[in-house]
C-alpha cells in the first residue's frame, strides 16, 4: 500500500472576488521508502499539496489517502492521527525560546505514545542531535543558536518519533553545504533503513541526488521529470 495516494485532488482558496484554483486534478503516489522532491515556481501549489497530505488543511475534492485513511471529510481526531505519524519540517523553525533542545525533543516524544524513562528519552535525543551535529546544544536554548542550528533542532523534532512520512518545506534553505549534506544524507538513510517516505519541497539542487523522483509543478498541475 503506498504511503500517499492522491486522485483528482483539486483545491481552491476563497478570495474576496473569485476562488483561486491552486491545485487542479492532482494524481500522485508516494510509495513506502520513496524520496520525492517537488519543484516548481512560486505559486505552483507545492506547499498547498504538502499541507493537504499532512492533514493541515481539509480536502475539498478528489481522493487523498494517507496511510490508507481517506482525508476527504476526515474528522479532527483522524487528522491529528495523520499528523502524529508525520514529521513536518517547516521553513520557520518555530522553536519555543523557553525550551532547551532536549526539552523540545521531549515534548515531541509525548506524541509517540511510548512511555520512555527520562534517561532513555534523553539518550534518544542525544543520539539524533549527534547525527545532526548538534550534540553540544542538547541543553541549550534557541537564544544561543544560529538560524541554521535552530533549523537542525527543528529537523530533529520532526524525526525524533521515527515517523513513517516526512513532509519538508525547504529544510536546507538556512543550512551551509556541510550541514545541508548531513541532513539530506540522514533523510535518505531513513528511507533506506526504515522505509520512511519523504516528500520534500525544495529548490536546493544539493538534495536532488538523494531523490528517487523529482516532480515539477506548474500552475497547480503536476508533471514528472
Amino acid at each position: 500500500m503506498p504511503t500517499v495516494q492522491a486522485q483528482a485532488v483539486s483545491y481552491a482558496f476563497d478570495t474576496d472576488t473569485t476562488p483561486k484554483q491552486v491545485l487542479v486534478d492532482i494524481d500522485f503516489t508516494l510509495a513506502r521508502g520513496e524520496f520525492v522532491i517537488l519543484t516548481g515556481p512560486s505559486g505552483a501549489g507545492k506547499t498547498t499539496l504538502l499541507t493537504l497530505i499532512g492533514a493541515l488543511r481539509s480536502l475539498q475534492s478528489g481522493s487523498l489517502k494517507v496511510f490508507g485513511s481517506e482525508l476527504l471529510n476526515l474528522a479532527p481526531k483522524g487528522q491529528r492521527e495523520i499528523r502524529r505519524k508525520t514529521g513536518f519540517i517547516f521553513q520557520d523553525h518555530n522553536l519555543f525560546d523557553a525550551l532547551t533542545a532536549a526539552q523540545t525533543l521531549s515534548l515531541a516524544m509525548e506524541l509517540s505514545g511510548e512511555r520512555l524513562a527520562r534517561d532513555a528519552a534523553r539518550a534518544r535525543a542525544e543520539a539524533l542531535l549527534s547525527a545532526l551535529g548538534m550534540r553540544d546544544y542538547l541543553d541549550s536554548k534557541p537564544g544561543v543558536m544560529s538560524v541554521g542550528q535552530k533549523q537542525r533542532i527543528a529537523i530533529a523534532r520532526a524525526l525524533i518519533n521515527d515517523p513513517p512520512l516526512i513532509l519538508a518545506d525547504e529544510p536546507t534553505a538556512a543550512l551551509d553545504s556541510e550541514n545541508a549534506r548531513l541532513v539530506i544524507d540522514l533523510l535518505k538513510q531513513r528511507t533506506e533503513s526504515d522505509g520512511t517516505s519523504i516528500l520534500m519541497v525544495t529548490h536546493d539542487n544539493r538534495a536532488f541526488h538523494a531523490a528517487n523522483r523529482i516532480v515539477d509543478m506548474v500552475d497547480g498541475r503536476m508533471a514528472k521529470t
Partner: protein
Amino acid sequence: MSAQVLLGLRLLWHDKLRLLSMSASVAVGVVIIFVELGFLWGILDAQALVATLARGQFLVMNKTRADLHHWDKIPAAELTLFNGVPGVAKVMPVYEDHYGLTDPDGGRTVDSHRIRRVILYAFSPIDLPLAVGDPAPMSAALKMADSFVFDRWSRPIYGHIVPGMDVELDKVPLQVSGLATMGPDIVNDGNVFMSDTEWLKRRPDAQPIMGVVRLAPGADVEEVRQRLLASAPSDVTVMTPQEARARENNSTLKAAPIGLLFALGMVAGLVIGTINCYQVLYTEVSDHLGQYATVKAMGFSDSFLNGVILTQALVLSGTGFATGLLFSIFADAFVAWLTRLPIQVHLESGSLVLLAVIASCVLAGWMAVRRVEAADPAALY
C-alpha cells in the same frame, strides 16, 4: 507533572521580567479589591471601636441607644443594680461626651480653626474598662488631677500635643498627663480620656453612656447573661462586645450605602484583574502563535494547548495575588497613616480574594484559548 503543565510553567519562567510585569498587571485588580475591603473593614472597625476595646464580657446600655454613636445615657443607679448579680465581679461605668480642644500651636492648624471637637471618655483609672494603653501608666496618668490623657492616634488637626503641656479643654487649661491609643472614626477626629472622678467634678449630673461588666473568675458567661437580663430594667439592653460590634456594623451598613459602594469597587477590581489577565495571556499567545501552530501541526490537540494556557492563567493568579497582597499591605498602611482609621489587609478575607482571582484568571484563560484554537497550522506554510 504533565507535559502541558511543564510547558506552561517553562514559558512563563523563561522571561522573568516579563513574568513580573504580567503578575503586576494581574496584581492591579488584587490591590483594588484588598484596598476596598480594607476601607470597608476599617470604617466598620472604627465605628465599633468602643465595643472592641471593652475589657469585660458584657456591655450594658440604654435600649434606645440604637448604635454606639447615639448619646442615650443610662442612669448610674441602674448600673449599680448589676453589681449584685451572682457571677458579676464589677460593673464599670463609662462616660462619654464631646468637648472643644484648643490647638496649642495657636492657629497653625490646617484650616486655622483653633478649637476642634473631640470625644471625651471618662472611667475609673483603677478598673480601666477600655483597653486604650498599658494599664499601669494609663492608670497613673488618669489619676492626676486637672489633667487628661490624649489619644496619640487622633488626626493631626489638633496640633502637636505631648505629655506635660497645658491644653485648653472646653476653654479650661488642663495638663496632658499621658498618651493613649484608640483612634478616630469617620465622624470624630480624636479622643481624650479623663478619670470619672475628674469628669464628675466638672459634670456632677453626668450619666454613663454604658457599663462594662466584668465577670468573676470561673463564672459561666451564659448563666450570668441570663441573670443580667432577668434583673435588667425594661429600658436596658445587655450585649457581649461581639454582639455590640455586629450590631454596630449592621447599623453602619444600613445608615449609608458604603457596603454597596465598596462592593462595586471590589467588582471593578475583579473586572480589571480579569481584563488585565486576559490581555497578558492574549499577548503571550500572540507572541507564540507560530509555535502553538507548530505544536498543533505535530498532532497535539486543542485541549493540550488549552491546558498550557490555563496553567499560565493559574500561575498568574498566584503570582498576581502574591504581588497584589504585598502592595495592598503597604497601600492600606499608607491610607491608615493618613486617615488614622484602622485600615489594613484582612487576611481572613485572603482566601476568598484568592479564589476570586483564580476564577477571574481562569475565565481570562478560557477567553485566551480562543486565540490558540484559531492558530492555523496550515498558515505555517
